[in-house]
């Protein structure tokens, strides 16, 4: 019962994050919503694994959070520098402020 309530809360939070990702006026709203969605996925997997009593899924939840972190670093790096090349090279080309940041928002 308690797990069910927590699950409901996570799903409602997912709805709110989805709303922010679709409506969000700036890039960072959307990025934050996507990051939060990764966190909610980890939480949902944890709750489901306790619910069906297979706690070995918890290792997978750990891997998910690692993946979500690496993906978010890649996205942030891309939206800051506009390229996946070396950061020094990118700064040399576009300046340290990163002109791509304003283009996307």
């Amino acid at each position: 019962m308690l797990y069910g309530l927590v699950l409901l809360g996570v799903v409602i939070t997912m709805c709110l994050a989805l709303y922010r990702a679709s409506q969000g006026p700036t890039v960072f709203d959307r990025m934050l919503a996507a990051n939060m969605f990764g966190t909610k996925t980890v939480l949902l997997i944890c709750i489901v694994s306790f619910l069906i009593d297979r706690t070995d899924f918890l290792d997978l939840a750990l891997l998910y959070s690692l993946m979500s972190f690496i993906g978010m670093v890649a996205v942030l790096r891309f939206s800051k520098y506009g390229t996946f090349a070396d950061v020094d090279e990118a700064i040399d080309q576009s300046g340290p402020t990163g002109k791509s940041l304003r283009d996307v928002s």
Partner: protein
Amino acid sequence: MTESTQFIVIPLLGLLAATALTVARMRDLWAAVMLSGIYSFLGACWMMVLDAPDVAFTEAAVGAGISTVLMLATLSHTSRTAKSRPRISWPALIVVIVTGSVLAYGTLDMPHYGDPDAPIHRFPSPTYIEKTEHDVHDMPNVVTVVLASYRGYDTLGETTVIFTAAVAVTLLMRIRRPEVTAS
């Protein structure tokens, strides 16, 4: 999926449909990439609830991780917004609806989820499960044994295809490199 997790499937599928509709209507491609990452996370959640953690992890790694990065790399070479709102093409819509109905009708004949009499549970699986212990020493995971041992040549072929594609893409993308070093 047990009785206790059954009620979570419907909200997850509803969220999946909502995300797909939002992506289809989105003109800002950067936001569409973010939303497709969210879609992959939702799909991974759903597969997890259906008790398929390996498929769910592949979905999260490929869908939310790698393809988001690849899409962003593509966006850096093209424009960031779609040009115009496409008009509804009625023949295409009718074809899609008919195809979808036929596919949904086809699922009516499929065995129920977790049905022990389903062909997939009766035909090849017991043989693999029985022989794994004898054929491959001390390998607890049947899926790994099937992929890496019984279907080893198949997996080798798939890896070769992916390697060839990676080499081709690398060669194509290298054309831009000399400009960067020259400047």
